């Protein structure tokens, strides 16, 4: 595809369940970003990869959140033991330019609802 692809688009999880959210960046893009957007709020930074290296994970809210990008392409954001406060849209973005989130293209997001 031509853009950043995220799957699933929608996910309903029971509290305590583990979830995995996938991001397929634009081919060749070295930088990949994850943001969390709660209802009525702006996106909040979670983590940033340059190729397979996770250069910044300062935004991950707890040790239940884990992100990886093992081959420098597809990335997975994993949330363990989901809580209701994890309900949000999770946005992924990728960029050809190293470390410039402002040059990044965003995916359509995964809407996670924890019940």
């Amino acid at each position: 595809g031509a853009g950043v692809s995220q799957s699933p688009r929608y996910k309903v999880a029971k509290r305590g369940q583990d979830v995995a959210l996938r991001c397929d960046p634009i081919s060749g893009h070295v930088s990949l970003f994850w943001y969390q957007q709660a209802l009525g709020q702006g996106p909040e930074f979670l983590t940033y990869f340059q190729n397979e290296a996770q250069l910044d994970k300062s935004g991950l809210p707890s040790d239940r959140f884990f992100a990886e990008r093992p081959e420098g392409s597809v990335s997975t954001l994993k949330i363990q033991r989901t809580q209701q406060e994890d309900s949000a849209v999770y946005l992924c973005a990728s960029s050809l330019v190293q470390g410039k989130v402002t040059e990044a293209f965003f995916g359509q997001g995964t809407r996670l609802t924890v019940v």
Partner: protein
Amino acid sequence: AQRVTQPEKLLSVFKGAPVELKCNYSYSGSPELFWYVQYSRQRLQLLLRHISRESIKGFTADLNKGETSFHLKKPFAQEEDSAMYYCALMLNAGKSTFGDGTTLTVKP
């Protein structure tokens, strides 16, 4: 702490009227500020950045360091401008902080 504030959650204007979406920031360093737009059912996309001093779709934004503001303006709003607008501050290469957004509705 770094912060971006968009004081208006909702803004409604008539077609052809001027529009200004407000953005204020707090940041101790040299700010790089941006506006993003999200049209209905579409992805978040970059609209413009202060550093390039560009006009996109008739929108402009001027960085005012004295007032710590970066308001988005357009002299004549169009119905297709109806969207959610986010102001953002780039903190470092990989991270930006966003305001909570303003929903602009342009009425016919």
